């Protein structure tokens, strides 16, 4: 109830600001809504949203699986950590824009370049978090699985993975919020479709209703996915404390 009220206040503020600033600079909510409806009717809105979501999903899965594997390795094997650490620090501090631009220069303005660039931006976060999780794995439980000769894969699935779950969830969470932001930049710079591309077009045409229509629907979709998918998933994964009894 309070959230709805807060949302209403936001809309009201927007409306008043629009009246004061003039619709050329800030169109009022109905104008933006009308644009959303026309874009939706033509199907363009769904096309661009869909394309963007697909890129997010691909880059996210790629970065999470690769990042978790590298993070686990670096957490377990000291040599891997020493070799990988400089790379990790470089990647962590490389601006997203640099990675995207370089990817487009080296691989052309292609889908592969876009998705790889997004994944590379997210990768180090997953590596760092899973590495930290791996470092604090309970050695007491490791000893238990060794003595009882529990096969490696079973032990990984039932003993290691539940301990890593909160760290993987945290990596997914922070990584996803990063991917949401970067995907639009990658699209703006080098893709012929997607929400980021539409925002770029709207920017060039000073088409503010269109800009707001796309960015607000995108934000709404992100919000929906976060509340419906990510948060319950995270809550489920973090049910158990990482320490064993």
């Amino acid at each position, binding site marked *: 109830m309070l959230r709805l009220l807060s949302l209403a206040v936001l809309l009201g503020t927007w409306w008043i600001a629009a009246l004061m600033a003039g619709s050329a600079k800030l169109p009022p909510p109905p104008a933006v809504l009308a644009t959303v409806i026309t874009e939706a009717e033509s199907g363009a809105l769904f096309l661009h949203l869909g394309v963007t979501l697909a890129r997010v999903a691909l880059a996210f899965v790629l970065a999470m699986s690769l990042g978790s594997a590298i993070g686990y390795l670096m957490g377990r094997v000291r040599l891997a950590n020493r070799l990988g650490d400089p790379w990790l620090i470089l990647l962590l501090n490389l601006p997203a824009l640099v990675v995207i631009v370089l990817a487009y220069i080296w691989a052309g303005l292609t889908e592969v370049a876009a998705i790889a660039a997004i994944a590379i931006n997210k990768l180090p976060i997953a590596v760092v978090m899973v590495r930290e999780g791996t470092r604090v794995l309970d050695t*007491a439980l490791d*000893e*238990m699985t*060794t*003595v*009882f*000769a*529990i096969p490696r894969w079973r032990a990984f699935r039932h003993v290691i993975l*539940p301990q890593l779950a909160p760290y993987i969830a945290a990596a997914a969470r922070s990584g996803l919020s990063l991917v949401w932001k970067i995907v639009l930049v990658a699209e703006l710079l080098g893709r012929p479709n997607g929400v980021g591309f539409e925002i770029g077009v709207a920017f060039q045409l000073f088409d503010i209703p269109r800009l707001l229509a796309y960015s607000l629907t995108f934000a709404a979709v992100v919000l929906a996915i976060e509340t419906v998918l990510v948060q319950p998933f995270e809550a489920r994964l973090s049910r158990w404390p990482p320490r064993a*009894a």
Partner: protein
Amino acid sequence: MQLEVEIARKAFTNAAGERHDVLVDFNFALGTGEIAVFVGPSGCGKSTMLKIIAGLDHDYQGRVVCPAGARIGMVFQEPRLLPWRSVDDNVRLAAPQADDEKLSALFAVLELTAHRNHFPGELSLGLARRVALARAFAIEPDFLILDEPLASLDDALAARLRDQIATLVDSRSVTTLLVTHDMDDAIRLGDRVFLLSPRPARILAELPIRTPRNARGEAEIAAIKAEIARRTNGDCAKGDVL
């Protein structure tokens, strides 16, 4: 199954870089089905010895000989259960091949039947220990290693669990190593009692107990205790062992 242990030397290096001997010339052999109890003061190196025998620590001089493929069931000082799995699943994870009937019987002996669907977080220490014990027995081990299974339980509970352990080890032929600092437990459970010195641990004396476990009365236990006191007098600080 037979077990031969010859640990010439086991040392730890502390943070300052100094090496400390934990075990020196630690030799013994156990026959099939024998229950060996090791009694020694806290911190003398008992757990270290168990870790070496369990194959968790390879950094020592000497050798541990046991038949290839021997199954080891172990109860650690802490229960070491998975908090995200129920009691039943914790046991089945270690013993996937255990059949339902045998498991039910095992849970019944340990009075865990009512707790099979509980999670470790819902159990008291005494119950969690029994689950760890159930896990060790469920794999039908050739060797059973018990590291202070009765520590920090109140007397009544410890006595119950001790009887349950006795019932279980008597019902199957499993070579057992039990570590304790409680002389009473040692005499009530062991076939052979090894008395250990303070660190670095050596075997001070070995004491066979020939009376069957269920025939050991209070008088007999007192007599064995007196015998141990006589044999260890002067060789090791009284307060430490007895």
